[in-house]
């Protein structure tokens, strides 16, 4: 079927719920309203209020209750309406979801997938456009996934729903309806923890994920670059092997993400490359991110998010140094 990311995730959820009766969805407006982005559209009609649960407005409660459900043998998939609202449940994720398995020495585990829309570029109000992947990756114990296309979104979500771990599933709002692609009707898995080499080249490596993949691809085409382009797909645990393999081949690396530049995923990747492959480098590592500040109002967001000009300039610097 031809599907955008919303349809692909909706289709995955329907199949996951059919496959596993322990799966329930819970969140704000996910029932009759189908979620504010319509990702859960129609699921309440098929599975009923018992499995598609409109909750009170309480993000800590939603994530905390999901932890309790998972402890009692269910497999909840909570939806947090926007990434900015998820910080109200941050304590539950960091204090509990990240470490329940470890602090019980695997006698208790938390099979759950927390879905939330992330990143900007669609002129939403403040607090609707954050890119929080680094926060959730830093703690350890949370698997952090971010698809860049409908095909990966379906396969990653199916895989996440079959894992016995808490997974943070970040859905770039801008990509929900940006484009359609062929998505198989049947269930399939995209491996978690494995990056995707989506374009092969010899001269440089560009590592990215989520919204920025599309900006990067456009720059690569316009500049006719002979580049490896890596879509991380999983942020944590990071696929270091795939990164190092490419960097050792090309010797030049740019890391591009929409999240703020400082203390981010780019810093983590750059440090790993510097640690293990610095003598394979022909030029300093280049990072591109949004400005190191809280996400601005929608009127200013296009001045904040990396655009093709910023990415292009960074690549020029990489190729000429």
């Amino acid at each position, binding site marked *: 079927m031809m599907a955008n990311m919303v349809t692909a995730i909706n289709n995955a959820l329907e199949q996951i719920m059919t496959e596993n009766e322990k799966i*329930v969805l819970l969140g704000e407006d996910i029932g009759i309203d189908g979620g504010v982005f319509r990702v859960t559209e129609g699921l309440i009609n098929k599975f009923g209020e*018992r499995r598609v649960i409109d*909750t*009170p407005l*309480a993000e*800590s*409660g939603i*994530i*905390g*209750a*999901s*932890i*309790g*459900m*998972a*402890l*009692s*043998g*269910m497999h*909840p998939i909570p939806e947090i309406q926007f990434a900015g609202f998820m910080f109200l449940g941050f*304590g*539950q994720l960091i*204090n*509990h979801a990240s*470490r329940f*398995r*470890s*602090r*019980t*020495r*695997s*006698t*208790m*585990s938390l099979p759950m997938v927390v879905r939330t829309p992330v990143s900007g570029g669609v002129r939403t109000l403040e607090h609707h456009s954050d890119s929080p992947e680094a926060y959730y990756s830093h703690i*350890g*114990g949370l*698997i952090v996934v971010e698809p860049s296309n409908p095909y990966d979104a379906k396969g990653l979500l199916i895989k996440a729903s079959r*894992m*016995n*771990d808490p997974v943070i599933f970040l859905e770039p709002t801008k990509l929900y309806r940006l484009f359609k692609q062929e998505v198989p009707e049947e269930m399939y898995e995209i491996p978690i*923890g494995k990056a995707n080499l989506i374009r092969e080249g010899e001269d440089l490596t560009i590592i990215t994920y989520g919204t920025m993949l599309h900006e990067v691809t456009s720059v690569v085409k316009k500049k006719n670059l002979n580049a490896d382009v890596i879509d991380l797909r999983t942020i944590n*645990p*990071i696929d*270091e*092997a795939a990164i190092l393999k490419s960097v050792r081949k090309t010797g030049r690396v740019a890391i591009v993400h929409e999240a703020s530049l400082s203390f981010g995923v780019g810093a983590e990747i750059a440090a790993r490359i510097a640690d293990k492959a610095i003598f394979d480098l022909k030029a300093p590592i280049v990072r591109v991110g949004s400005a190191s500040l809280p996400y601005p109002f929608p009127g200013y967001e296009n001045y904040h998010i990396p655009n093709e000009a910023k990415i292009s300039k960074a690549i020029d610097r990489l190729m000429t140094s």
Partner: protein
Amino acid sequence: MKTEIFVSKINFLRVVDENGNADESLFPKDLDSGTLVRMYRLMLLSREFDAKVLSLQRQGRAVTYAPLLGEEATQIGSALAMRPSDIFVPSFRQHGVFIARGMPMDIMLVYWRGYEEGNIIPKEVNGTPIIVPVSTQLPHAAGMAFAQLYNKTGASVLVYVGDGGTSEGDFYEAINFAGVWRLPLIVIIENNQWAISEPRSRQTASQTLAQKAVAAGIDSIQVDGNDVIAVYSATRDAILSGKPTVIECITYRMGLHTTSDDPTKYRTDSELEAWKQKDPISRMKKYLESKNLWNEEMEKKAAAEDAALIDNAVETAEKFKPNPRSIYEHVYSYMPETLKEELDEAEANNFWQGVTE
């Protein structure tokens, strides 16, 4: 138009008074003499265990510990009201609940030695591990109660929280979920009057903590938390009702918040002395003696048995040998390559050689 549209009331329950006299009309019919003696024995055992851990901590053989001294009736009364299928969700002071539910004391002591292996709870104990961030266990308990409905188990979930914990957002979010979803969730507020140095009056202007349930549309009651019979009775009624309920137990933290705390800095001796007169253990003892169910000879025998049990548990717990690999091995359901590399580096270079607690 202006007219009264809502009124509410909170009941207070006491069955056995400070002198051990029972109000027979309120006495739970299902309590036989064996159970009454068991209640008392478990309160004694909890207090002895508590004293032992405190002593171990002072000797450097345990980490920071939160004593339960004075709160035995609240813990044992509620724990014994549970059926085996009911699940408990503790905070960090519910050692009596763990003991009453059959948690091996040696495993508990491994926790208080500072090892995650002390959170390995045998299945039949039917509880979750200690939770330290105040009130954050409440939403878990709501989710667990939802799962009981979802799976039609008929079980209830009992969750423990202190007076300070009722000021947290998670407390309200959880009881609100319980009301909306009609969950079999029972919230035991162990109101020991103090949240470290902050008195109950600093937490809320509400006359009772029980009335917080009113806003969530669920049942509530306040009980004498130093009366083990009243706590049992209220908890058993709530469990059998299957309805979400808040039970505020009025008790007193006769000891320290934790072993890092010095209560003389913020509360008076006279307050402590007044509460010692209401001691939950001596109250139950007076009651049992008045019914010829207990005497000094039994007391001596019980003390000797408890001491032996506790010493045995300490001995077993101190045999526990930590394995530092275990901190890496249980983070995910599988070992990611990057984490394995950190583990391998530590082992290959003997970073742990000579490391002690």
